[in-house]
């Protein structure tokens, strides 16, 4: 990398670091898909109420019977009036505790407006019943945390999935995703909500964080946890990228048809997660004149993707194709057909008969030939196999 590129990289890294410090804050978001954004134009102090002797059920009386997340379970004026003498305050009397409109509805002046600003409190997109949890003696704090230092409760007091999983471990309580998450007709989790897309985020207790570059890193996990992936995704979702036909615009950068050889040279395994070398890559390479086994009319005439023929094929040396092939044979089979290699590596070739097998191959050839000798017989005669001790 030249000096200029190093400088550019350094500046980008510094900018990112500086921006990170600038943005640093303590708040952590819950999923907007699960808990949509709220607007609660209220003044309230949970800590003060608990300190005054109230318990949760004093105000949230309906919770014990609530069987759906659509229930708000918030106290109305009638519950507040148990302690707050709203009627007296409306007559201009001084009350303790305070009971004027402004005590709970900041900036609300009943002489100017008819009603205070409304709460925007969408229900959680979950399958949830307070009743069952309370019947099982689950403490409010187990899910909502310690409220003694909380003023106005917001989304931050709603449980994160890691909290749920402390009990929902398939032993104490069911651990299946659809125990709590909503599903669509297919039985898979519903992912699209008007408030956002359900997507595992940072801190996901299953280690499924679908963060940046997840397109490139999910393979390891998907290979061993397909059942987990299929809780949300149908085969058609995977095939949107893995069917080797469509260009996934979020994966391949611009101009990828021109630039893909560069990435393929270093990481052909990534290509192979969607493309078979012989049935996809080689065919297209033959069409554009890169592959040398193509029909005569399609053969390359000005391609210069290898060193000169003598260095690459004829003379043993550090730039001989055998070294590259040994390190990454995918590069060869992405453009060439077996015939290319057989022209010099087959015992039946009139040109050369260079042994392509690794050291010690003769010790295992009998076992391999017994399992499948079809490939052997592409390059060897039956008599030759027997002579080499491979029969």
């Amino acid at each position: 990398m030249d000096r200029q590129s190093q400088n550019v990289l350094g500046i980008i890294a510094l900018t990112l670091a500086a921006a990170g410090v600038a943005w640093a804050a303590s708040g952590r978001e819950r999923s907007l898909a699960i808990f949509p954004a709220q607007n609660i134009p209220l003044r309230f102090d949970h800590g003060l109420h608990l300190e005054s002797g109230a318990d949760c059920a004093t105000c949230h009386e309906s919770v014990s019977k609530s069987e759906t997340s659509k229930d708000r379970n918030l106290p109305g004026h009638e519950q507040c009036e148990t302690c707050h003498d709203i009627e007296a305050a409306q007559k201009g009397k001084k009350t303790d505790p305070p009971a004027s409109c402004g005590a709970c509805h900041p900036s609300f002046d009943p002489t100017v407006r008819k009603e205070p600003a409304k709460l925007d409190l969408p229900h959680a997109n979950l399958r949830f019943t307070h009743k069952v949890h309370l019947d099982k003696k689950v403490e409010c704090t187990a899910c909502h945390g310690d409220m003694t230092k909380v003023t106005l409760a917001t989304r931050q007091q709603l449980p994160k999935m890691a909290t749920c999983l402390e009990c929902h471990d398939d032993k104490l309580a069911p651990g299946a995703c659809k125990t709590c998450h909503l599903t669509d007709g297919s039985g898979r989790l519903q992912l699209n909500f008007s408030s956002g897309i359900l997507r595992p985020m940072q801190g996901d207790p299953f280690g499924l964080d679908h963060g940046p570059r997840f397109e490139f890193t999910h393979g390891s996990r998907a290979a061993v946890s397909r059942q987990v992936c299929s809780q949300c995704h149908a085969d058609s979702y995977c095939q949107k990228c893995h069917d080797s036909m469509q260009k996934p615009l979020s994966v391949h950068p611009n101009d990828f048809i021109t630039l893909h050889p560069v990435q393929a040279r270093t990481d052909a395994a990534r290509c192979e997660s969607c493309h078979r070398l012989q049935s996809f890559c080689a065919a297209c390479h033959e069409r554009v004149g890169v592959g040398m086994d193509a029909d005569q009319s399609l053969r390359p005439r000005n391609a210069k993707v290898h060193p000169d023929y003598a260095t690459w094929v004829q003379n043993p040396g550090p730039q001989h194709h055998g070294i590259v092939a040994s390190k990454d044979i995918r590069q060869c089979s992405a453009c060439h057909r077996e015939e290319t290699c057989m022209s010099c590596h087959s015992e039946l070739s009139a040109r050369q008969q260079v042994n392509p097998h690794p050291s010690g191959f003769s010790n295992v050839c009998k076992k391999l030939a017994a399992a499948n000798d079809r490939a052997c017989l592409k390059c060897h005669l039956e008599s030759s196999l027997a002579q080499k001790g491979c029969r």
Partner: protein
Amino acid sequence: MSFLDRAQRSMGRAAHATWALGLGLALLAAEPASAAAFQIEARTEAQAYQIRAWRGTTPDDVVLLPRRRIVQYLGLNAFELVTGQDLGFEASLRIFADFGLPSGEAEKLDGLPSEDADLMYAYARYATGGFEGQLGRQLYIDSMDVMAFDGLRLRYMSRFGVGVEAYGGLWVKGAGLLASPVYQPDGTRESDSRRLEQNIAGADDSLDSLQPVYGAKLLAGNLKGFSGALGYRKSLLGGKTDLERAGLELRYARGLGVSGVAGLDFDLLQMKPAQARLQVRLDRELYAVSAEALRFTPVFSTNSIWYYFAYAPRDEVRLRADYYPVGSLRYYVQALGSLYHDNINRASSLADDVDAEGAPPSTNVGGSVGASFRRGNFRSALDVTYRTGFGGSQLWVDLTGGLPINEGLIELDGRLSVAQVDDAFNPQLRGTFFGAQLWASRALSRAARISLVLEQNVNPFSRSDTKAFFLFDLKANL
């Protein structure tokens, strides 16, 4: 075979498949008083651009090959065909045509049809308790491979956390009926029919043969935090072993937020690990760190001569740290190093040249740094990746941004990318490549969306090129 004949044959296949799917659905849906849910999915993708080919007599004598491809996906899904029962059906059919590829040219190429119809999957599924069964064409993904087969898969997981899975059928290969080669064993052509017609020596008529595949797994689900599977798979072609593998998958997800994932795949023909991967990830409120070690070996059919060549695996180590100070912004940095092994026959005169001056390096190192940002509806991401060593050096800068407008009625996305590449192996691809992409999409209804993508690239190789993509997505519940 003329273009018209091929097109008619493909369309005929597609029509038959659609008719069969429709009939199947109708029969399945005939259950009276059913709470069945039906879903159709359709996706249309059209591409138009040109590819610079190497057929010219000089580098300046450019031959441009047109790509005018249209791909149509049709999906039919049905669920809960019997009220209260997890009985369903899922199918996806793909039809495509490349109007930029003349049929005469396609006939000279193995595996590049100018039009075709592929049934990607079509299976009936039933599940009850810990039992699950799938019958039909289905995808199968595990640590060993990604494949598709026509057959039956049965899975049972007991309430004690142990289970078993068995599957068997015919591997879906390009030469099959309404079949795509996308998941077939690699290392051989999808068919040698063209070469057989021309009496070319070495053409293999077994490539078109039916290929049975079967396997089984012992399963563990959340046993003291461990989940995993121990599996075996074998595939035969013409009565001879094509692939034989054993796989071990393991996952641990307990403790101080550590979740480990491991996968290992043994090639039984040579009794050596073919693929291996080990990942450990620690997730915390403000950060996550992960380490991953991988071994990659090409997965070739034993019918391919390359399976017996002196090639070696690549090992890779990846370290990554993510930091998310607030919900709207997060950063990550990733480092990776690859080691390319070699397997040169020690008796070969090349053995001494592997590490000689001028030989390709055995390592490739690099990393990525990036950030993503979400605020309100706006989202953006920046990624900078650099790698050097085996395969040359490459620097990629990728900036994306997207904004849904009017609750997603319209969505605008943009992407700017810069690549600076230098590979002595391929001097034609050297320099700085710029690209810009603009994506505009509009929802036609809650179920349908139409998108247009324009891409403009400027670079020293093709100088300037423009690409256009059109997409139409439909997903509707009936």
